[in-house]
Structures are given as structure tokens and as C-alpha cells.
């Protein structure tokens, strides 16, 4: 089996959680209310915890000096392969919820498939993640409904966020070369097959929330090839600050 392809595949799955976790972490102590602040940081913590299991596995595959920390903290921007959706800035609470919802629905579908992987480690990480991801999906779906079916202002703001983030959804279903290799080996998830279920589930929640499903036909991509939006640099600067300033620092 091609170890490099498996390594790349793992990063493709995990970088999403790392970068989204970092984005959510920015809100620690800055949430709009105590309850949402706690919720968002809890979700961030779950996502970072999930990353650790994957990166530890990836580090083992890579061998040498590679550690979970070096994978998470010491790559350059072009080496991160997360989708563009998760790096989008917090803007306002509507964006935080819309981004979370659009990712959670995908993440859950992906984990449900990944738990069937022939790779035992990936399958068991996915099985553990499902429970947490399900809870995140409930949280973000609930908020989509509350904001959409709330006041005129909350409705307008969440619709604005959904519209703005919509062009980043299609990239979730793009299959890269290493993905394809892992799909053929029975290890990876063929995300292109999740597309219909995803848009159906998303539309159901949006409809219940009295929101419109955007109709735009233009979609962004590039994250999976390491070509990121202008928001990625500042995010990494904060994420990597400590390890870059004090190399090899430990808790």
C-alpha cells in the first residue's frame, strides 16, 4: 500500500477539523452569549481532539522526526489541504453558524462512511467522531432554524451568510488523486457520492428555517490543492505563533 497516499488522505480529512477548530477557538470568551460561547469552544475542543488521533496516526506513517505537533503546527500554507469553507472568517454569528452547519452535515456523512474503512485505525477514529459530530450537527441545525425563523434581522443575517458561504460547498465533494487511490483501496470515502444526500439534508433544514437555498452556479475550489483564500495566512500566523517563536515548546 502507498503510505504517502494514505498520509495525504488523512491530512485531507483532518485539516478541515484543525482549521475549523482554530476559527472557532477565536471566539473563546467572545461568543455572543455565555451558552453559545461555551458551545462553540466545546465544538472547537472536540474538533482539535479528533485531529490529534488522526495526526498521531499520520506521524506514525511518516516516521522520522514527524510528530502530531509538527504536522499540525509547522507546515507552510500551501501544505494545508483543508477546504476553503472552514477557513472563512467569523464575520458575525450568522457566518459562524452557517459555516458550522454547512461543514457539519458533510462531516457527519463523511464519518458515517469512513467508519466502514478497511483501515482499522481510521474506522475506529471515525466511529468515535460520529457521536460528537452528530451533536455538533444538531447544534448548528437548531441555530439555523432559530435564526432563520427568528426576527427579520436574524433571518436576513443568516441568509446573507448562507448565500456568501454557499460557493464554498461544492469543493467538499471533489476527489483528489490520493483520495482516488484510497477509495480504490477500500480505505477512503468517495466524497463525490455524498453530494446528493448532502444537498438534500441541507435543503430540508434551510426550508424548515424559512430560508432560501441559494441558486448560484459559481463555486470556489483550490483548498484541497493547497491554494487558499486570503484568510488562511492570518489564521496560520496565530495557530503557529507559539511553535514558530519558541520551537519545540511543550506544555
Amino acid at each position, binding site marked *: 500500500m502507498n503510505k504517502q497516499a494514505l498520509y495525504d488522505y488523512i491530512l485531507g480529512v483532518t485539516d478541515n477539523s484543525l482549521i475549523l477548530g482554530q476559527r472557532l477557538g477565536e471566539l473563546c470568551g467572545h461568543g455572543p452569549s*455565555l*451558552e453559545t460561547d*461555551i*458551545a462553540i469552544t*466545546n*465544538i472547537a*475542543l*472536540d*474538533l*482539535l*481532539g*479528533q485531529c*490529534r*488521533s488522526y495526526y498521531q496516526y499520520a506521524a506514525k506513517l511518516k516516521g522520522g522526526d514527524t510528530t502530531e505537533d509538527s504536522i499540525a503546527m509547522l507546515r507552510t500554507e500551501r501544505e494545508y489541504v483543508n477546504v476553503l469553507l472552514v477557513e472563512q472568517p467569523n464575520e458575525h454569528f450568522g457566518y459562524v453558524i452557517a459555516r458550522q452547519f454547512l461543514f457539519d452535515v458533510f462531516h457527519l456523512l463523511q464519518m458515517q462512511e469512513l467508519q466502514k474503512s478497511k483501515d*482499522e485505525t481510521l*474506522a*475506529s*477514529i471515525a*466511529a*468515535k*467522531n460520529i*457521536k*460528537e459530530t452528530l*451533536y455538533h450537527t*444538531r*447544534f448548528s441545525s*437548531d441555530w439555523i432554524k432559530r435564526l432563520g425563523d427568528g426576527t427579520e434581522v436574524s433571518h436576513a443575517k443568516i441568509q446573507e451568510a448562507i448565500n456568501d458561504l454557499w460557493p464554498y460547498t461544492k469543493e467538499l465533494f471533489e476527489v483528489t488523486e490520493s483520495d482516488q487511490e484510497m477509495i480504490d483501496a477500500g480505505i477512503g470515502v468517495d466524497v463525490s457520492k455524498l453530494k446528493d444526500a448532502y444537498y438534500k439534508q441541507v435543503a430540508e433544514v434551510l426550508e424548515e428555517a424559512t430560508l432560501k437555498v441559494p441558486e448560484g452556479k459559481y463555486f470556489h475550489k483550490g483548498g484541497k490543492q493547497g491554494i487558499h483564500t486570503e484568510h488562511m495566512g492570518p489564521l496560520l500566523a496565530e495557530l503557529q505563533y507559539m511553535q514558530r517563536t519558541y520551537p519545540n515548546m511543550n506544555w
Partner: protein
Amino acid sequence: MVKDKPKIAPHLQPILESVPDPEIPVLTILDLGMIREATEVDGEVYVKLSPTYSGCPATDVIGDDIRTAFKKHNMTAHVEFVISPPWTTKWITEDGKRKMREYGIAPPLSESADKQALLEGKKVVPCTLCRSTNTHMVSQFGSTPCKALFKCDDCLEPFDYFKCLI
């Protein structure tokens, strides 16, 4: 299920019982069902520990606490984290649930009751102070990854509910 039953050497049991959960100190890691295996070979103890929530910062502390506890008995503990099968609230012992309740945390309900409480807003979680089920959820997430916040509408006591994880 057979694989759900932990394998713990009887003489190691009391030492493991002395290790509390750092976040909920009335509970030991045995009460929580986190120890899946503990065996000893010539003073070397091998412990398999099942983490509760992926990102729970208490997990690393628990690993250290186990090593410290065995060191006091001149044994070296090797702690390995195992995530398969994933930890579930079903592994919390009855005694653990009782201690939790007395401490002021409502223990996890059955899967269906949990769903009713967290998703459908049904009044099923009993208040830890007055036992009334006239309670409501304040927040899906609480002070630690494993808990949600509730409030009693009769005695007005705010309390934690330990979420069900199947």
C-alpha cells in the same frame, strides 16, 4: 457484549480506585468505566484507557495520575489510550451514577430519554436537588465536554446533566 467487559487484575483494582476523575473528583476512573484492561507482569503494569470525549483535556491528566498512583506502590504503569470500541456512558457503573447524583450532576438517562431531553425539550431530567422533572435545558453544552446545563423550574436549582453517549 463480551468486549464491553473490562479485564482488570483484582490486586490492581484498589489502586485504580484511588484515581479520581480530575473534573468530577467524586468519581473514580473505574466508576466512569474508562479502564478497559489492567494487567501486571513483574511490577510493570499495563493499562488500557478509553478516553471519554476526543478533546477532553482531562485525558492526559488521568494518564499521569495513573502512573503516579502505581509509582507509590513501586510499580511502573504503561498507559495506552484505546479508542475502539469507543467509550460510552453505558460503562458508567451504578455506583458511579449514584455518586454523580449526590455531587449535583444528573447522570445520563437512557438513549431515548436523553434524546427527548436534549432535542425535544421534554421534561424528563430529574433535578439533582428536589428530584422534580419539571426542568428545562439551558444549554446543550456545559462546563466540560460531557455535560449540558439544566435548570429546575420548581426549586430553581441550576445543575449539570451528564450527556448520554452511546
